[in-house]
C-alpha cells in the first residue's frame, strides 16, 4: 500500500493540473505546438529529402518520411486476339512503379566521394578548432586584466573597446587593410580579424567578477602574480563560461562564410573555403535554373536535389550534435551578458 501511494499521488497531481488548466492554457499549448512544428518541420523535411529517391522528390511526395521508388518488373496476365477470332492469355512483364517508405543513401555516398566537399568539411573542422582556441585565449587575456581595479587606464581602455561594438570601419576599409597585410586569399583572414568579440569579452569579464575576491587576495598574500592567479584560480573556476564562449565562437566560425566570400575571391584560394561557402555555391548553381518555372529543367536536377539535401544535412550535423550542450550554456551566457553594469 505504501509503495503504491507515491505514483498515485503524482498522477493525482498531474490530473489536477490538467483539470485546473483553462481554455486559455490550451490555446497557448496549441500555439506552442504550432511553433514547435514550424521549427522542426524544415529540418525533418530536408533530412527526409536527403534519404529519398530523386523521383519521389520530383513528385513532391517527400514531406517527413523518406520515400524510395521501387522499380520492378511484375508479371501481368494479358489477353491477345489471334487472327481467327480466338483469344489466348499470355504472361508479360511490365514495369511497375510504387513509392513506399524506405531509405536511399546514394546522395550521401556521392557526398562522401566528393573530394572537394569532404576536404572542405575537414578543413572547416580544423579551422573552427584553431579559431576557437585562439579566440578563447585572446578573450581571456583581454577580459581578465580588466577585472582589476588596480589597472591604470582601465576606464579608457573599456570605452575604446565598447566603442568598437557600436561603430566599425566597415567592409571596404577592412578589405584595404587585409590587402595591405597580405591577408587576402590567405586562411589567416578567416581567423585573425574575429578573435575577440567585445560582447563575449564582457560576458567573460562579468563571470570573472563573480568569483569571490577573497580567493584572489589570499593567493596574492602568498606572493602569486596576476598570471598565476588567472591560471591557478580563475580559469579552473570558469569552465562553464569558457564552454559557453567556446561554443559561441565555434558556432560562429562553423556557420560563417561572409569573410571567405568577400576576402577569398581568388580561384586559387578556393581550397581554403569553409563548408558554408561551398554549400552556398552548390545551392547557387541550382538557383538560376530553379527559378525558371520549367519542370523539365527541374527534372534533370532531380538527383542533385537529394545531393543538395545531403550537403545541407552534413553542414548542419556538427551544430545539431553540440546543440544539447550549447543550449544549456548559451542561455546562462546570454542572461549574463544582458545584465547591465
Amino acid at each position, binding site marked *: 500500500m505504501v509503495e503504491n501511494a507515491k505514483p498515485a499521488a503524482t498522477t493525482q497531481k498531474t490530473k489536477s493540473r490538467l483539470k485546473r488548466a483553462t481554455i486559455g492554457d490550451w490555446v497557448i*499549448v496549441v500555439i506552442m505546438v504550432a511553433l514547435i512544428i514550424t521549427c522542426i518541420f524544415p529540418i525533418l523535411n530536408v533530412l527526409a529529402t536527403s534519404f529519398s529517391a530523386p523521383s519521389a522528390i520530383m513528385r513532391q511526395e*517527400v514531406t517527413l518520411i523518406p520515400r524510395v521508388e521501387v522499380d520492378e518488373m511484375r508479371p501481368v496476365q494479358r489477353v491477345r486476339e489471334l487472327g481467327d477470332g480466338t483469344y489466348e492469355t499470355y504472361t508479360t512483364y511490365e514495369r511497375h512503379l510504387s513509392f513506399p517508405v524506405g531509405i536511399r543513401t546514394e546522395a550521401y555516398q556521392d557526398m562522401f566521394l566528393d573530394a572537394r566537399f569532404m576536404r572542405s568539411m575537414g578543413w572547416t573542422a580544423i579551422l573552427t578548432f584553431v579559431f576557437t582556441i585562439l579566440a578563447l585565449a585572446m578573450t581571456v587575456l583581454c577580459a581578465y586584466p580588466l577585472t582589476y*581595479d588596480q589597472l591604470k587606464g582601465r576606464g579608457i581602455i573599456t570605452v575604446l573597446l565598447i566603442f568598437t561594438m557600436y561603430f566599425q570601419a566597415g567592409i571596404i*576599409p577592412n578589405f584595404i587593410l587585409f590587402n*595591405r597585410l597580405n591577408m587576402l586569399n590567405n586562411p589567416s583572414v578567416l581567423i585573425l580579424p574575429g578573435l575577440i568579440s567585445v560582447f563575449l569579452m564582457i560576458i567573460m569579464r562579468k563571470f570573472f567578477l563573480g568569483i569571490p575576491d577573497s580567493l584572489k*587576495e589570499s593567493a596574492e598574500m602568498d606572493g602569486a602574480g596576476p598570471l598565476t592567479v588567472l591560471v591557478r584560480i580563475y580559469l579552473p573556476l570558469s569552465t562553464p563560461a569558457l564552454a559557453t564562449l567556446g561554443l559561441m565562437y565555434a558556432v560562429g566560425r562553423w556557420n560563417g562564410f561572409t569573410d571567405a566570400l568577400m576576402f577569398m575571391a581568388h580561384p586559387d584560394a578556393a581550397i581554403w573555403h569553409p563548408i558554408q561557402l561551398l*554549400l552556398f555555391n552548390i545551392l547557387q548553381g541550382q538557383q538560376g535554373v530553379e527559378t525558371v518555372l520549367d519542370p523539365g529543367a527541374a527534372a534533370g536536377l532531380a538527383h542533385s536535389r537529394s545531393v543538395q539535401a545531403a550537403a545541407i544535412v552534413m553542414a548542419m550535423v556538427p551544430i545539431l550534435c553540440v546543440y544539447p550542450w550549447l543550449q544549456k550554456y548559451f542561455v546562462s551566457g546570454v542572461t549574463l551578458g544582458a545584465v547591465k553594469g
Partner: protein
Amino acid sequence: MEGRDFVVVKMKSGGGRTHPALRYLQRYWGLYAMLLLPIAFFVVFRYWPMINLLLAFKENNLILPVLEIPWAQPWRMYFADGSRVISLPAMANFERAINHPPFQTAFRNTIMFSILDLAVGFPAPIILALLLNELKFKKFKRITQTISYMPHFLSWIIISGMALRLFSPTVGTLNGLLESVQLFLGMEANPIPFLNSAPYWVGTVVFLGVWRSIGWNTIIYLAAITGVNPELYEAADMDGASRIRKMWHVTLPCIRPVIIVLFILAIGGMMGADFDRFVALRNPLVHSVSDVLPLYIWEWGIRQPLTGQAMATAVGLLQNSINLVILLAANYLVKFLGGQGLW
C-alpha cells in the same frame, strides 16, 4: 584600493623604500603583459581600418596607400534658381553614390526590410515570452524553448537551402501540400512563388528572419520576467485581474527597461541589413527588392573596385554613421524621458 596597496607594500618589500610606481609595476606588470596582444588586436583590426575610412573623401585609386591619395572633388549643390552654390569639400563620392540608381534601390530596400523586421520581428519574441511565461506545463515549456532556440544556430546558407526545398514552385514540399489541398477542393493547382516573385520574396524573407530569431530573443525577456516581484501578481490577483490584464499591467511594465534597451539596439541597426541573409536568399528574379546596402558595398567596393571602391567606402561610412547617430539619439531620448538607456 588603498587598503590593498598597504598589504602589498608590507608583504612584498617589507616596508623598504622602493618608489611606489616601481612597486606597482613589480606587482602588476603581468596585467599589462596580458593586455598586450588584445590591445594589438584592437589597434590593428578595429582602429587601423578607421584610417582607411578617409578613402570616402578621396579619389578612387587602387594603387596608392589611402593617405597618399589626393582628396576628392567637392560636392556642389546648386539652388534651383542657380543663384547660390553650396560646396561641401571632398564629398564627391557621396554625391556620386546618392545619384547612383543602384544605391537608391539598396537604400530603399534596406529601410524597407528594417521597418518590416522591426514591426514584425521586434514584438514577436516579447509576445512569445509572455505566452511561455503563462505556460502551466513546465516540462512542455522547457521542450518548447529548447526547440525554438534551434533555428538561431543554423546558418543562413542552410536556411536558404531548406527554404528552397520547401518553397520551390516545382518540387517544393509546401507547394506540393498546397497542390493536393487545392486539388482536393476541386480548385486548379496553383503554386505560390514564395521565392520567385518580389512581394512574396519580401514576405518570405521577413518570415524567415522572425523564424530564426524569435525563440532565441525570448531568452532575455524570460530572464527579465523571472525578476518580476511575485507580490505584484498576488496584489493583482486580489483585485481580480484577469490573466491578460496581469500581462499588460504587471509583466509588461516590469520588463519595460529591457524592452527599451533592445529597442534602442534594434533601431541602431536600422541601416545595416544582415549580409548573410540577403546573399543567401536572393535570386535573379527578385533583384529589385533583394539588393540591400551591404550587397551594394560588396558589389561596388570589392567586385568592381575600379569604378566604385571610394564610393562604396563613402556608402559604408554613411551607413555606420547613420546607425551610430540613431543609436545615440534614441538613447538620449530615452534618458531624457526618464528611462534607463544603454549606459
